[in-house]
């Protein structure tokens, strides 16, 4: 009886958990942006915060960097994914690359960025491998490779991380469109593989991956942790500047931060509109290309180029993680030696206590947020099934909304709002803030397998006399154990990777592996970064291995569920 009254409320509750903090945060941003911050004894409205912000010389450059990094990294990632899919989908090389890239998806952005920095920096692995034999360097060159003023290393670091994401999203979309047969047909019409795919399949696929692409764009424009690690700092991107202002002990600086957050939101909206108009340009260019009937001459070389870039992305993350591991165990490690003189446990022992505490905090926050997200998601999907509801495309857009509003636009506002309302920052609110980002990913991960469940199983079970709750608990959920655990692993990985919500909503007092790792940037202690970066990666990867392992053990005698 209880569920009957409770279940219909779950979709609303889920929306509230996802959208509520976003809207509250935006509201909390607007007020201080116009000088209204009662907690600091300031009352608006006034344009002063904007005026002060505009007076900052770095602003145009910071704004430019946000837009440039966002557009460039998204466009490059999408291009690489399109070339890989067009040139290689269905081949063995593709299967290998896919297997290589899928686990890398869960590697937190900060860990990937640290690893990438350890590869490309003047004293990084690449420079060591080439020195002194090729470069002639016997000491690290004085080059600004990481944190370069044009943010090229930041763009590269983002591309490396977004390619696996977009590739897997595209693969999921391909499953829905009937692409295999149209690929066969265009090849029978004399088109080479790559050109044929780009002309016939890509337009269909792009339509389906549009929202995830926008998510990537918004993320890249407003990301903070990657920008702190790889991005320039004279000036830094606008998002980093906002966070700096937010952490200033002088409360009045929050007015400027809020004004910056609104500018950030405007930039993101502008960039999205620009991207959409770019879509239109490409659509007309594309249809002209289709009508030209050209079959493609450069296919082989372009395809191989795409594959090389894909492999490069995979290896960048893999070797980056390896670099984190080596640094975490490194004793003395002189330049240009490829490996340290000795491997020691000292670094791990020295950071052991802090690292364990941070791991526990990370697991607690991620665990609670993921459980809540799973409960809400299963509740929504079950309500949809029982009451035969249909989810419209507008409903899907709501699901993406928390991912399409830049974090730096609403999280500062949320913190300020809590301050004004006298609410305590801390672990509880951090969990709620994580839930905002965990929920959409858990939902997107679980929705398809949940809906694909053969509902005749439910009919049979009901005909056997099982109530709807019994059907859910003893038939549907056990059968869906694997996708549920996978969704949980996705949720945990998302939570582990969260930097800004933990920092801002935790008031700087909640220390997770991610916040601790990013805090190490300024000190530059590579061994400590290695320890925390590696633990951060493990915190995201271990749940994925469990999600594979547990169903295999639980259902070891049930071959009907081995591949489901």
């Amino acid at each position: 009886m209880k569920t009957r009254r409770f279940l219909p409320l779950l979709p609303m509750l889920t929306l509230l958990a996802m959208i509520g903090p976003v809207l509250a945060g935006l509201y909390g941003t607007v007020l201080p942006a116009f000088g209204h911050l009662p907690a600091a004894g300031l009352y608006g409205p006034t344009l002063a915060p904007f005026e002060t912000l505009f007076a900052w010389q770095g602003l145009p450059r910071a704004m430019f960097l946000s837009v440039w990094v966002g557009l460039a990294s998204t466009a490059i990632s999408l291009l690489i994914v399109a070339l890989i899919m067009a040139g290689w989908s269905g081949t063995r090389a593709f299967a290998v690359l896919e297997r290589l890239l899928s686990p890398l998806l869960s590697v937190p952005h900060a860990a990937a960025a640290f690893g990438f920095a350890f590869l490309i920096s003047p004293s990084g692995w690449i420079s060591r491998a080439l020195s002194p034999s090729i470069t002639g360097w016997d000491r690290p060159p004085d080059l600004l490779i990481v944190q370069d003023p044009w943010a090229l290393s930041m763009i590269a670091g983002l591309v490396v991380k977004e390619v696996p994401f977009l590739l897997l999203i595209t693969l999921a979309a391909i499953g829905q469109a009937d692409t295999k047969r149209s690929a066969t047909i265009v090849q029978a019409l004399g088109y080479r593989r790559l050109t044929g795919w780009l002309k016939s399949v890509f337009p269909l696929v792009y339509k389906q991956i549009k929202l995830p692409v926008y998510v990537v764009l918004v993320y890249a424009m407003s990301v903070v942790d990657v920008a702190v690690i790889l991005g320039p700092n004279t000036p830094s991107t606008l998002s980093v500047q906002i966070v700096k202002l937010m952490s200033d002990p002088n409360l009045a600086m929050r007015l400027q931060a809020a004004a910056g957050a609104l500018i950030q939101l405007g930039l993101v909206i502008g960039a999205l509109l620009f991207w959409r108009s770019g879509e239109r340009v490409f659509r007309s260019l594309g249809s002209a290309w289709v009508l030209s009937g050209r079959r493609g001459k450069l296919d082989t070389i372009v395809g191989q180029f795409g594959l090389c870039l894909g492999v490069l992305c995979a290896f960048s993350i893999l070797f980056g993680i390896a670099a984190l591991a080596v640094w975490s165990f490194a004793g003395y490690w002189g330049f240009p030696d490829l490996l340290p003189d000795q491997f020691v446990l000292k670094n791990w022992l020295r950071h052991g206590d802090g690292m364990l505490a941070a791991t526990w905090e990370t697991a607690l926050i991620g665990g609670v947020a993921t459980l809540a997200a799973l409960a809400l998601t299963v509740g929504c999907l079950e309500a949809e099934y029982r009451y035969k509801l249909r989810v419209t495309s507008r409903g899907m857009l709501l699901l993406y909304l928390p991912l399409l509003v830049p974090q730096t636009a609403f999280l500062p506002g949320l913190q300020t709002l809590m301050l004004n309302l006298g609410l305590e920052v801390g672990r509880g609110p951090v969990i709620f803030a994580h839930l905002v980002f965990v929920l959409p990913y858990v939902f997107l991960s679980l929705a398809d397998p949940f809906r694909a469940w053969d509902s005749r199983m439910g009919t049979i079970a009901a005909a056997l006399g099982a109530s709807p709750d019994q059907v859910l608990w003893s038939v549907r959920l056990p059968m869906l154990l694997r996708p549920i655990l996978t969704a949980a692993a996705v949720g945990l990985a998302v939570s582990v990777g969260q930097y800004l919500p933990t920092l801002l909503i935790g008031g700087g007092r909640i220390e997770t592996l991610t916040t601790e790792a990013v805090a190490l940037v300024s000190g530059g202690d590579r061994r400590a970064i290695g320890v925390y970066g590696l633990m951060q990666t493990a915190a995201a990867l271990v749940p994925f291995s469990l999600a594979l392992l547990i169903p295999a053990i639980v259902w070891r005698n049930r071959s009907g569920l081995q591949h489901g």
Partner: protein
Amino acid sequence: MDKGLELRDVVITKGGVQLLAISKSIASGEVLSIMGPSGVGKSTLLAYITGTLAPDFEAVGRIVLDGHDITNAPPHARRVGILFQDDLLFPHMSVGANLSFGLRAGGTKAERQQKVLNALEEVGLAGFSERDPATLSGGQKARVALMRMLLSEPCALLLDEPFSRLDAALRAQVRELVFARAKVRALPVVLVTHDEEDARAAGGDIVTFLPS
């Protein structure tokens, strides 16, 4: 109180267009065979009887089972059993657990266990209780699915082309088994099929729906 299943002026429509209309009584132990091409709404009629009609269909008319009007009862309270063309054994449960799931609540643990073992024996599957359903042959799965349904003590049995996945030899055998078990329990049966031989073997009335 009349025993049997009665479909009273049932009309099923989709988007305002009538798919089928039927008014028919099936007495205990009798079989009504429903034939017709795919898409004519045969399975939809069964979904209406089990209470799992998809939302894009509308239906009117009463369903009366053993004198009770079950038209608005929830699916699990109707006591209407159904078998589909796939066995739909729960893949996460052993053969025995599948049967226990079906077995009506009540009785001691030992009694329940015994009923499950008896059911397996009744269809020549003694010793299969601990088996993984996925390791059974098609004919064995069909028999387990039948016994699972019968253990839930339904008051009527619906068959949605339950033999169409089986090869010819097995088909006759399983068909005979199903009809015999239903007869023993005096169940009214509705059989939906493409195959005239199925309908003939059922031995009851045959209703043929044609596309409207």
